[in-house]
């Protein structure tokens, strides 16, 4: 028997004052009665009762009450041995995140070392004398139980088949899953390069987990972002590419940065040995914009001047101090299509040395303007022709056919019942709502109250000039409100934009006056229309998809035929169902096959946290560090001996005793009082009878 909080047992000392109270009562002076006449008819005890202290029943009941209450507060429990059940689970968690690809001093990767030790550990745990079964959990973006109930051989096989991924890992979720599977008596072995004190885990999980830390000193530099900027008003040879590079090494590094079209890179990679998990397939066309890392210290280096033709293969040399990042701008890129930005770092983690990007092609974009105003069509065509490869067609609402809307559809004060299936849409001053938007009412006099940052409003300094005097109010919905107005104390949306089902939709509560578009000084309207065309410009159907590792790729989209098969670094994956998706675990160039043909999927690895492989490296040369779980207690020993010791709470039983004692006390007190009353009533009634 044990107690959760044994200090509460000290409360039983309250019995001492109770004893004192009772003894004090019994030692009080004699009571005065009216007469001893009746009392002398009652036999007197042979010896005075004070000489033989005899505590009444009530005292013992109250003492029992105090003792039971103290016992209940102490939280009693008893250990109960149960027949041995199935062997306890030993859970092995292996971190397969990208940082585990970092090379160690001996040339092997952290993952290889962790895997070897995990196999060894699992074999020891599953040995007959240990009597445990092994569960293997792969700590990837989502924890995954590879197999459970394994013996030594099964554990070694399953662990040996694990491969490292090009993604981050959710180690916390993996450890919590392991804690749930292991239970109270199980053990958890975590093989990772993250120090134990940096892993967020619950108290129970931390108590059971032993972390095998494979972090080691490492040097790494990474390409952390690629951004392509194309000016609508310039030719396609004027594209600008910004590449961010960060040095995660504790020492200064000199790097070479190359910007290589994918065709050239494919040829070069074909000649050279392929980088691990980053094989480059056939060249294609893609567009990219990756997450940019927050540089500790940024420096923009202009790699080329505007007049000088750029040589994409020419390396740019960078000198980065420890922790420094740099943004390299490649001006006037003369070609379009997919490319890779690669640094020749020769560091411990090659995975993040390359990032994919794309300079978009200038394919003509079909713009269908549905309006009653031919003049607006003329002015828009005039403007679009100067902005880019837009081909504007104008039709009246009566002549509108939904199948004619392909690239961009702009509806001027007209709303079709059914939105176009494949085109990006703009509704200018819609008169009513449809599936894309909801019009609430004409709010009357509206004052522009708030604007939010968005590419549509970039360069529009005076939104009031856009709105006019009689705007339309838009109701909140799937679209994001970008321009808010206030009318009679209410807020109404005047401009909304967003992406629904793969289509970009813009709705404005105001319309455009054709005459205003002829005036060069009506800059807000001109800028907004240019932003509108740019925002709604659809990607080419065969343009490569740009993704980062860890993202989920859906098979279907409304603008393109659903992907049926994906071929790439992960092998061949058949998707089939348009609603299916998969997690991109490998960086590299994929080829997505659909009914309409094939298109490239460029998957880059961008994760500064993973790239910072030297974050957990110990200064010493000790290859691994193990943070052991707390010492195994007696129960665990009992468990290992084949007997399960369980805590069975005795609190309900003790509380029952408390209640029973309270009831007994009440009965005793009540019976004493009732006896007295009965005697009084009987005497009174008997005495008054004549």
């Amino acid at each position, binding site marked *: 028997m044990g107690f959760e909080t044994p200090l509460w047992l000290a409360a039983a000392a309250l019995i001492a004052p109770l004893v004192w109270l009772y003894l004090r009562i019994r030692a009080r002076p*004699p009571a005065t009665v009216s*007469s001893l006449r009746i009392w002398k008819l*009652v036999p007197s005890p042979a010896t005075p009762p004070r000489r033989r202290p005899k505590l009444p029943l009530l005292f013992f009941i109250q003492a029992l009450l105090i003792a039971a209450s103290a016992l209940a507060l102490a939280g009693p429990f008893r250990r109960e041995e149960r027949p041995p059940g199935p062997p306890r689970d030993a859970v092995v968690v292996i971190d397969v995140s990208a940082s585990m690809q970092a090379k160690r001093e001996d040339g092997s990767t952290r993952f290889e070392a962790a895997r070897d030790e995990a196999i060894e550990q699992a074999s020891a745990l599953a040995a007959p004398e240990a009597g445990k079964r092994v569960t293997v959990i792969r700590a990837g973006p989502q924890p995954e139980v590879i197999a459970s109930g394994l013996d030594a051989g099964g554990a070694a096989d399953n662990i040996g088949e694990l491969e490292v991924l090009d993604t981050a890992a959710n180690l916390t979720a993996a450890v919590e899953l392991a804690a749930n599977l292991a239970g109270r008596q199980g053990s958890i072995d975590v093989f990772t390069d993250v120090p134990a004190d940096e892993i967020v885990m619950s108290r129970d999980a931390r108590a059971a987990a032993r972390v095998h830390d494979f972090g080691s000193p490492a040097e790494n530099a990474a390409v952390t972002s690629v951004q392509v900027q194309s000016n609508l008003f310039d030719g396609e040879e004027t594209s600008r590419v910004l590449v961010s590079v960060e040095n995660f090494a504790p020492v200064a590094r000199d790097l070479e940065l190359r910007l290589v079209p994918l065709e050239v890179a494919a040829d070069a990679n074909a000649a050279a040995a392929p980088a691990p998990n980053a094989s480059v397939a056939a060249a294609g066309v893609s567009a990219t914009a990756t997450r940019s890392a927050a540089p500790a210290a940024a420096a923009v280096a202009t790699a080329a001047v505007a007049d000088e033709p750029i040589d994409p293969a020419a390396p740019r040399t960078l000198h980065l101090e420890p922790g420094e990042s740099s943004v390299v701008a490649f001006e006037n890129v003369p070609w379009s299509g997919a490319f890779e930005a690669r640094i020749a770092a020769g560091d411990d983690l090659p995975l993040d040395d390359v990032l994919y990007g794309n300079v978009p092609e200038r394919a003509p974009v079909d713009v269908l303007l549905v309006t009653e105003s031919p003049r607006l069509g003329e002015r828009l065509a005039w403007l679009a022709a100067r902005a880019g490869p837009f081909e504007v067609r104008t039709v009246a609402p009566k002549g509108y056919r939904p199948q004619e809307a392909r690239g961009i559809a702009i509806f001027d004060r007209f709303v079709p019942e059914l939105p176009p299936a494949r085109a990006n849409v703009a509704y200018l001053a819609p008169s009513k709502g449809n599936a894309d938007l909801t019009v609430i009412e004409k709010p009357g006099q509206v004052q522009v109250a708030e604007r939010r940052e968005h590419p549509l409003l970039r360069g529009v300094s005076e939104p009031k000039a856009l709105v006019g005097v009689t705007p339309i109010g838009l109701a909140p919905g799937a679209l994001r409100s970008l321009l808010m107005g206030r009318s009679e104390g209410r807020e109404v949306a005047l401009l909304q934009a967003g992406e629904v089902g793969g289509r970009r939709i813009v709705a404005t509560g105001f319309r455009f006056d054709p005459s205003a578009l002829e005036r060069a000084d009506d800059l807000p309207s001109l800028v907004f229309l240019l932003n509108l065309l740019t925002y709604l410009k659809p990607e080419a159907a065969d343009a490569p998809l740009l993704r980062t590792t860890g993202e989920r790729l859906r098979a279907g989209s409304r603008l393109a035929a659903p992907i049926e098969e994906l071929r790439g670094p992960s092998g061949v994956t058949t998707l089939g169902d348009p609603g299916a998706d998969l997690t991109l675990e490998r960086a590299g160039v994929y080829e997505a096959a659909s009914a309409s043909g094939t298109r490239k999927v460029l998957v880059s690895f961008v994760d500064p946290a993973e790239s910072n492989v030297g974050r957990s490296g110990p200064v010493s040369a000790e290859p691994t560090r193990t943070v052991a779980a707390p010492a195994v207690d007696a129960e665990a020993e009992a468990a290992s001996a084949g007997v399960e010791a369980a805590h069975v709470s005795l609190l309900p039983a003790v509380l029952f005793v408390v209640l029973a004692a309270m009831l007994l006390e009440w009965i005793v007190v009540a019976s004493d009082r009732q006896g007295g009353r009965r005697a009084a009533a009987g005497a009174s009634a008997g005495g008054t009878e004549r």
Partner: protein
Amino acid sequence: MAAVAPGTRRIDAAQARLLDQVFDTGALGALTRVRLKVAHASGERPGHTRVRNRSDGSGTEIERHVSYTPGDDLRRIDWSAYARLGELLTRRFVAEREVPVWILIDTSASMGEATRASKLDLAASVAAILSVVSLSGGDRLYLGAVPGRRRTREPLETCGPLRGRRSLGELRRFLTELSPSPQEGDFAEALLHALRHVRRGLVVLISDFLVPPERIAPALDVIRTRGCEGKVVQVLSREDLDPSWLRGQGKIVDRETGEEYVIEPSVQTWKRYEEALGAHLDALRRDALSRGMSSIVTLSDVALERFLREELPRLGLSLVR
């Protein structure tokens, strides 16, 4: 339990309250409208509460006719009878006297302080009720405290005869000044002494009667042989009836004699005490009944209103409006 200093004059708040209730204007008015009903009374209206006495020449009610003998008062010759019978007859009347009401209150120490209401408080209040009713009925009232106070050195201290409502002040003063006797006294002996002064009439004894019944019996015999109507009011405190308040007490002291007595504080002891008390009360009641007297037992903390409504009729003293 607060002790009473022996011999001190005691007018405590509880007694004053009880007496105030009796002498309250409204209550007093109500009491003066009721009458004591005595068993041998000839009437119930004012002036009719008389008791029959031996015949004599005066009176209003004719008892019998006797033949005229020379020397008789000529005014008593019944001339109507002479006209009918031709014989001279003289009228003899029933002599009527006022009812002398004796209220004797036990003021021994045992009637003193209790943990709750004092028995003497209620005794004084009961006496006050009966006195007010008696005085309102035109009776002659005697009050006696048995035993008397020390300064009188008498076993009986009396107040009276009192007549009429003008005596209420004296009555109230006497009752207010009642206090338990500080000295050891023999109530039975003092009662016998007091009854020497009693002649025919109504005698009301108010006491806790915690003395052996065989010692009270002579007093009851005296009351009967004197041709009096006796009423016994036994006042007990709740502590007298229910001994459980002595839980944890191994020794008790007699308030009157100071004698100590060892008890076993147990449920069995309480039960035995209750049995003994019941037997004592039964014996007293039997003694009273056997002598044609009515008796009641009342608690010292009984509400006065309830006493008037329930207890007094049981005593045979009906309040007649």
